[in-house]
């Protein structure tokens, strides 16, 4: 099962013969010239990187298809700067066209399911795509069943999450711009694990930075369901008690029961209701829909377990998963940088599996995560992780990693440089 063989291929080639151009390739394959096929779902930090690296490293020996519903990549990292106003949405958007030169076939569409036996991926428009290996990089979706007040799109368009960069990012910025001076912006943070551990605190800083310049009588209220600041605590607290003193209030253990979008009110699990002029709720999160609706969420029904050597699902063979959807290894954050690193380990493994080569038995990944305190000063957290064969998981390398000593402008330059390089690493 670990290596691609001709019998499997002929079987899957038969299953796809409804697909026009692909069917021609499929028929030709019987003659022996066919390439193994990898289909990737999700053009974010994980999926786009996997597509590029499989195409680049296999030097055209593998047929790569990337399925993505959006027209343009919009980055979650740096999207808080759009909310703070120092960047525009165009600054964090990148075209997918850079992938064309690698011979990657791009399909615009929404993947809804797959048949692991027939090895086909189903799209919402009714078409199906054949694969030998499927890679899902589905990101997160919200557990809205826990917040009935956000059941309707109307409610979610008023009380925004803006936790997937794009139109909601712009809409939240507009709510802040439209808010009167003297108003309250409240951000409610779910219990960890959630996408981007420092992200909510960075957002609070960005909104405070905006208020400081434009609406100094206003206030940022952080309602954290966690017992304490989840990431970069000392560095964020320093900003809230220092340059943003009087602008930011942090409250811990602030779980919510529901949201009343009509009145912008949070129903707290304990204590009085909280009302805000701009209310930003990050609902609890789980692996993206395609993973949870197809039995891949075998960790607490929320996240996906994988083999860390190949990123193959432990629930379904020949299906690999990357990024925020994973049940993380200890001390491994759900970050875009991490998803990019997952993708390269997975790309190397998938190429090896499909070409009869050796899978790397000692993969490593590293994480670098920058957070902007204002428009120029930045802090980071970094870590290095290695595969531990005995525990069959990734562990942090002892003595590695750490935090910034203090917010600084040099790291502001490096953070912007990081963004340009990682976007190019995925998409150019």
């Amino acid at each position: 099962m670990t290596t691609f063989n001709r019998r499997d291929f002929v079987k899957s080639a038969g299953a796809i013969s409804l697909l026009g151009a692909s069917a021609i390739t499929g028929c030709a394959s019987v003659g022996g010239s066919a390439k193994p096929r990898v289909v990737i779902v999700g053009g974010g930090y994980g999926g786009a990187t996997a597509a590029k690296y499989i195409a680049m490293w296999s030097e055209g020996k593998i047929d790569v298809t990337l399925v993505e519903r959006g027209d343009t990549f919009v980055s979650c990292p740096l999207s808080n700067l759009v909310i703070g106003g120092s960047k525009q949405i165009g600054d964090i958007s990148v075209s997918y066209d850079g992938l064309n030169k690698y011979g990657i076939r791009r399909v615009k569409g929404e993947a809804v399911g797959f048949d692991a036996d027939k090895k086909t991926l189903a799209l919402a428009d009714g078409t199906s795509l054949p694969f030998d290996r499927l890679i899902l990089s589905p990101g997160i979706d919200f557990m809205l069943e826990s917040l009935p007040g956000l059941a309707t799109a109307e409610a979610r368009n008023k009380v925004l999450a803006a936790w997937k960069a794009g139109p909601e990012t712009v809409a939240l910025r507009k709510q802040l711009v439209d808010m009167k001076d003297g108003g309250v912006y409240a951000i409610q943070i779910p219990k960890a694990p959630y996408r981007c551990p420092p992200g909510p605190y960075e957002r609070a800083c960005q909104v405070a930075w905006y208020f400081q310049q434009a609406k100094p009588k206003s206030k940022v209220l952080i309602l954290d369901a966690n017992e304490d600041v989840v990431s970069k605590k000392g560095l964020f607290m320093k900003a809230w008690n220092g340059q943003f003193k009087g602008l930011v209030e942090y409250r811990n253990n602030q779980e919510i029961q529901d949201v009343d979008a009509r009145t912008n009110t949070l129903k707290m699990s304990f204590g009085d209701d909280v009302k805000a002029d701009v209310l930003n709720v990050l609902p609890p999160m789980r692996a993206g829909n395609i993973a949870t609706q197809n039995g891949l969420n075998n960790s607490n029904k929320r996240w996906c377990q994988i083999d860390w050597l190949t990123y193959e699902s432990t629930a379904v063979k020949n299906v690999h998963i990357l990024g925020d959807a994973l049940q993380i290894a200890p001390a491994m954050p759900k970050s875009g940088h991490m998803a990019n690193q997952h993708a390269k380990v997975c790309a190397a493994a998938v190429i090896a599996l499909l070409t009869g080569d050796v899978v790397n038995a000692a993969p490593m990944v590293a994480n670098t995560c920058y957070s902007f305190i204002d428009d120029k000063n930045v802090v980071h957290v970094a870590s290095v992780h290695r595969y531990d064969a005995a525990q069959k998981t990734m562990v942090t390398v002892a003595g590695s990693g750490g935090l910034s000593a203090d917010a600084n402008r040099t790291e502001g330059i490096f953070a912007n440089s990081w963004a340009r390089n990682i976007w190019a690493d995925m998409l150019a």
Partner: protein
Amino acid sequence: MKAHIRVTALVASALTAIAANAQSAQTPVSKHLARNLAAQCANCHGTNGHSVAEVPSLAGQNAAVLVNKMKDYKDGKQQATIMHQLAKGYSDEQIALIADYFSKQPK
């Protein structure tokens, strides 16, 4: 030149050491180990070490220079914002492989 020979020897011994470890665990070694390790640097230093921004490119740099820089980061002799923390995550053998890989990339 002398430094170059030293790094070449280090790469050879790194591969031998890694192969020996792997064989003892009866696991064959991927011939792409250096490429896979170096790919971790691309997020900040660009694909195959070709940076498109302020962080320096690593492609085509002298392997011995890269090895020494990483050693200085590890030992705390070289100040940094982040590289001193990341460098400590890699063994001397791994650093030798990464440096050798980047030195062979066209500038």
